[in-house]
Every structure is written in structure tokens, then in C-alpha cells.
């Protein structure tokens, strides 16, 4: 038993990869789904066990190949990475039942098995980035998840999915290459690739080699920002989310950008900690300005969007703005807000995009004009949409409120009270775009396509309702989410000293 326990960090990533290889050998979509679902459901169990180990015994270090770091590759789990692992695996596990019908509907029969193979690769890649303690290994897994993401997006039915995928491939690869340049510079001045080792050696190295260290920071920042769609590097995201298959959109929206944020936090605080504090580069100020711009510009673009999937994609860009806002505050409350919003946003957006997936399943369209009366035709689905939508707005009692509360406290801690006003103002814009959909859905007469719609089958409905319920649950009981987030934030801020 204890030996299995010791092997959990490797299993967390290797199981999805093995699943992906096996799924590629299968012919039938349903078998591949069963395989993918089994593995996906194991993931939160493993992540939970890892979190438990971290909470009781402190950070876990697992030596792949039996080689100790910095010579071999290390898997390193601390509170932050365990939290993100649990988030990514938990949300994917909740979504898995939805996939069967949705994918069967949107993807051709002979391609479904490979679709699940790509999905498992993406999942494994994301978990691999989160768990690894090696900067270059993170790049390799970043590319596994990226390449599979490009394929998932390109499988959308609309031909614009191909364009979106191409655009993302170009920007994503530039981002990854910038990341490699950044890691390369760090390697040149420290001689190491292990994140903990780099962090330890960077202090003295920076004193000697200040400029390469700052250039590395700049390249890593730009590279990761491209991946997490930080405004104005977000242009790939709206189309990618709008035209990807429904399940892929929900999965990516809930997980992919979160992992990029994790990587950002890791480098920003755990690695550079010391250097950032002494930095002349003023990255936190820049991040603050860009975050605010994202919150407003993307929200306003969302208001004018006719395609609801794309509207929510813009909303994601705005929500990423909240997350980076908390990072730019660089204090404990702000970071807690950022980290808890990773989970909260994943839950809300997961519910919203799944609800849209169900609407696509019944209507074949997600244009605002086609959604007339959908609130009456698909009552349960749309109720979930409204609940999660309230979360996006930040109504008290939902998860969105919790995140914004911590962000506001963080802003006040720094004495930046106008920020609180900006947070509230941008929330009001989200009232407009969510409200617009709700108004059409409940108060307009049914359109031609929505006439015969009804709630989707149970296998699709339950994940939607589950995530919507979660967005209420984590809005009331914050023990698990915010409690862990503040512990993780504490550890990160501790690294700043």
C-alpha cells in the first residue's frame, strides 16, 4: 500500500498518457470514452491523496528515473500545485459524463477514439506542467497539451475552427519558444533546470548577471502570458473557444488557462521572488494596467458579441484579468483571490460552456437571436446557466463574490482603493452581457430552431447541474477552496521575502 502511495505523483501524469496511447488503438468511440472516463475519474482521487500527503507531511518530491535533482527530473507537489491538480482533475472528472453524447453528436464516428486520445494527452500535459519541478520538463508537457489542444480545436465543425486552430498554433508556439528562451537564459546563468535549484542559485547569480536574469524574466512573462491569454495577447482565445467542439471548449476554458496561470505564479514568486522585489522592470505595475484593460475591454467586447460561445470566451479574457490583477497586488489577500478564482472561474465557466454544449446539442446554434424562449424550453439547463452567470457577475452567495471579495481586500491592503471601484464597475458590464442572454432566453418568443428544444439527456444534464451547484457551494462554504488558496498564497508570499 505504501509503495503505491509513493508512486502517486508519477501515476497522476503517466496514467492519462498511457490511456491516450491505448485509446489510439481502439476503434469504437464508446470504448475510448469508457477508458477516458475511468482514467479521468481516477485523477481527482490521486490528486486528493497527494493533497492530503502535502497537508500532513509537507511538500512531496518524486525522483523520476530514481535520479535525484538537479541531475534527474523531479516531480514536486506543494500546496499550490496540489490545489491546481485537484482543480484540473476534479473539473474534468465532473465533465466526463457530458462528453459521451456531446462528442458522439459533434465528432464523426471513426474519429471519436482519437479525439479521446487527444483529450487524454491534453489532460496529461496539463497535469504534467502542474506537477513538475523541472523548467524544461514543463516545456515538454506544455507542448504535449498545446499540440493536442490545436487538434481538438481544429476538429470543430465550422471551417473557421481551422483558422482559429492555426492562429492559436502560431501564437502558442511563439509563446512556448519565448518560454524556452527564458529557461535557456536562466540555465546559462545558474547552470540548472530544476526550479527549486534555480531559485536557490538565482540570488547570487542575479547579483553577478543582472541583465540576463531580467531578460529571462521578460521572456518567461511574455511567453506564459501568450498561453494564459493575458490582454492584449489574448487574440487567439475567442475564436478558439467559439469554434472548438463543445466538450473541448468547456474542458479548455476550465483548465488550460488555469495551468498557465499556475506556471506564471511559479516563476514569478517561487523562482524570481527575490529578483522581482529588487527589479527595476516594474512588471507588477505593467501587469496591473493590463489586467484592468482586460477587465474592461474584453467585457465590453463581450457585450457586443452575437455568438454566445464567443461572448463567454471574451468574458474569460476579462476573468483572467481578475486573476492577474490579484497577482499584481503581490500581497496575501490578492494572491488568495487569484488562486481561489482559478477554481471558481473553472467551475462557473465549466457550467456555462457545458450548458452551451447542451444548447448546441438541441439547437445546433448558439447565436443570441436563436435562443428565444430557450429558458422555458430547457428549464434546468438554463437555470444552471443563470446560476453560473450570477457567479460571473459576482453576486453574493456565489463563487464569483468570494474571489472579488479577496481581490478587493488585497487592493485595500495596498491602499489602492480606486481599484475596488474598478472591480465593481467591470462587474456591472458583465451584468449587461449575461443579462442580455437571460432576457432573450426568458422573455422573447421561441425562434424557429428553439421551438422543439428540450433539456438534454441526463448524462449531459447532471454534469451541468453539478458544476452549477458547485458554484453555489463554494460560494457559501469556502473552507476547502479559499482555505487552501490562502495557505498557498501564504507560501508564495513567503518566497518574496
Amino acid at each position: 500500500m505504501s509503495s503505491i502511495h509513493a508512486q502517486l505523483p508519477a501515476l497522476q501524469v503517466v496514467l492519462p498518457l498511457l490511456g491516450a496511447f491505448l485509446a489510439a488503438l481502439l476503434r469504437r468511440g464508446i470504448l475510448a470514452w469508457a477508458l477516458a472516463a475511468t482514467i479521468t475519474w481516477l485523477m481527482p482521487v490521486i490528486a486528493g491523496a497527494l493533497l492530503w500527503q502535502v497537508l500532513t507531511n509537507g511538500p512531496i518530491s518524486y525522483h523520476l528515473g530514481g535520479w535525484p535533482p538537479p541531475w534527474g527530473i523531479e516531480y514536486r507537489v506543494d500546496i499550490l500545485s496540489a490545489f491546481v491538480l485537484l482543480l484540473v482533475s476534479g473539473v474534468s472528472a465532473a465533465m466526463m459524463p457530458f462528453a459521451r453524447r456531446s462528442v458522439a453528436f459533434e465528432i464523426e464516428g471513426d474519429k471519436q477514439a482519437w479525439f479521446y486520445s487527444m483529450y487524454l494527452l491534453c489532460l496529461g500535459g496539463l497535469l504534467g506542467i502542474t506537477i513538475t519541478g523541472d523548467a524544461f520538463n514543463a516545456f515538454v508537457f506544455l507542448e504535449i497539451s498545446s499540440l493536442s489542444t490545436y487538434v481538438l480545436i481544429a476538429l470543430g465543425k465550422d471551417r473557421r475552427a481551422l483558422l482559429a486552430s492555426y492562429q492559436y498554433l502560431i501564437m502558442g508556439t511563439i509563446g512556448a519558444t519565448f518560454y524556452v528562451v527564458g529557461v535557456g537564459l536562466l540555465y546559462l546563468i545558474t547552470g540548472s533546470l530544476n526550479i527549486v535549484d534555480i531559485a536557490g542559485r538565482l540570488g547570487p547569480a542575479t547579483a553577478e548577471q543582472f541583465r540576463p536574469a531580467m531578460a529571462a524574466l521578460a521572456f518567461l512573462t511574455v511567453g506564459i502570458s501568450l498561453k494564459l491569454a493575458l490582454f492584449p495577447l489574448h487574440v487567439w482565445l475567442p475564436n478558439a473557444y467559439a469554434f472548438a467542439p463543445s466538450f473541448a471548449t468547456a474542458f479548455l476554458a476550465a483548465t488550460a488557462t488555469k495551468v498557465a496561470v499556475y506556471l506564471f505564479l511559479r516563476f514569478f514568486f517561487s523562482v524570481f521572488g527575490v529578483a522581482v522585489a529588487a527589479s527595476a522592470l516594474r512588471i507588477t505595475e505593467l501587469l496591473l494596467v493590463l489586467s484592468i484593460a482586460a477587465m474592461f475591454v474584453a467585457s465590453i467586447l463581450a457585450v457586443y458579441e452575437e455568438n454566445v460561445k464567443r461572448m463567454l470566451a471574451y468574458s474569460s479574457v476579462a476573468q483572467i484579468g481578475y486573476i492577474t490583477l490579484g497577482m499584481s497586488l503581490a500581497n496575501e489577500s490578492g494572491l488568495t483571490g487569484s488562486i481561489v478564482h482559478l477554481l471558481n472561474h473553472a467551475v462557473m465557466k465549466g457550467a456555462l460552456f457545458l450548458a452551451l454544449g447542451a444548447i448546441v446539442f438541441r439547437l445546433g446554434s448558439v447565436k443570441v437571436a436563436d435562443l428565444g424562449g430557450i429558458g422555458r424550453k430547457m428549464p434546468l439547463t438554463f437555470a444552471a446557466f443563470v446560476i453560473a452567470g450570477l457567479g460571473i457577475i459576482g453576486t453574493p452567495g456565489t463563487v464569483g463574490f468570494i474571489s472579488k471579495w479577496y481581490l478587493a481586500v488585497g487592493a485595500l491592503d495596498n491602499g489602492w482603493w480606486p481599484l475596488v471601484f474598478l472591480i465593481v464597475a467591470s462587474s456591472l458590464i458583465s451584468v449587461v452581457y449575461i443579462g442580455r442572454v437571460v432576457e432573450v432566453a426568458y422573455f422573447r418568443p421561441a425562434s424557429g430552431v428553439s421551438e422543439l428544444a428540450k433539456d438534454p439527456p441526463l448524462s449531459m444534464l447532471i454534469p451541468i447541474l453539478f458544476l452549477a451547484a458547485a458554484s453555489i457551494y463554494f460560494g457559501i462554504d469556502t473552507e476547502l477552496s479559499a482555505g487552501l488558496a490562502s495557505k498557498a498564497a501564504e507560501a508564495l508570499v513567503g518566497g518574496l521575502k
Partner: protein
Amino acid sequence: MKLDLILRVVIKLFLPFILLFALYVQFHGELGPGGGFQAGVIVAGTFILYAIMFGAHAAKRIVPQRLVELMVPLGVLIFAGTGAAAQAFGGNFLDYAVFSHDPPHGRELGIFLVEVGVLITVSGTMIAIFYAFTGRGRS
């Protein structure tokens, strides 16, 4: 046409030697430059050369589409399986030392196995990509 014939004969003569070279690259990788990836590319290159000369149809008789689709996952399964086997023997993932009483020999064996895995996936993938692009044709 004549030139074509000469080319065909020459290539047929050369192919076995190129494959032999690929094997050399694969197994000599421990001593000199080379390894599974490079050998895989050379193997794939040989078949692609063959396919260009004799047509994709003839090439698919030697390496059918189905086989290629099998090779792509098979190689990585060997690699990951080697890693998992190490776990079964009580080591960490990819810790080949447990394969033998004498750790260095275990590692040598492990390196050999994963290089074979890489060879299979890489050559399979390269051929698969070539088939996919040429199979598309101009309408």
C-alpha cells in the same frame, strides 16, 4: 523513361543499405552519435523514398496503413511500459536500475528498450504523416 528505370534499380539496390545504416545508427547510439529518433527518421525516409519512386500504392503493400497506425501508439507504449515496469519492480517510474542486480546493466537494458520504443513511434509517425499528406491528393 530510361533514366527512370536506372533510378529505380539503383534505389532498389540502395534501400537495404540505407536500412542497414538505420540499424547501425540505432544500435551504435550508445557508442557514437545517433539513437532511436535519428534511426526512426532514416527508416521512415527509406520508405518515403520508395513510395516516391514506386507510388504510394506499392509502398502501402509493404507497410500498410493499418500497421502504421499500430506503430504510432506501440512505440510510446513500449517506452511508458518500460517506465511502468520499473515501478512494478519496486523502483520509481523509469528507474531502470531495478531491472538487474547490477544497476548499471539494468540501466543499459532500459536505455536499449526505450530507444526501440522511440524508433517505432518515430518511424511510424513519419510514414503516417507522409501517407496522410499524399493521400489527400489534388481532388
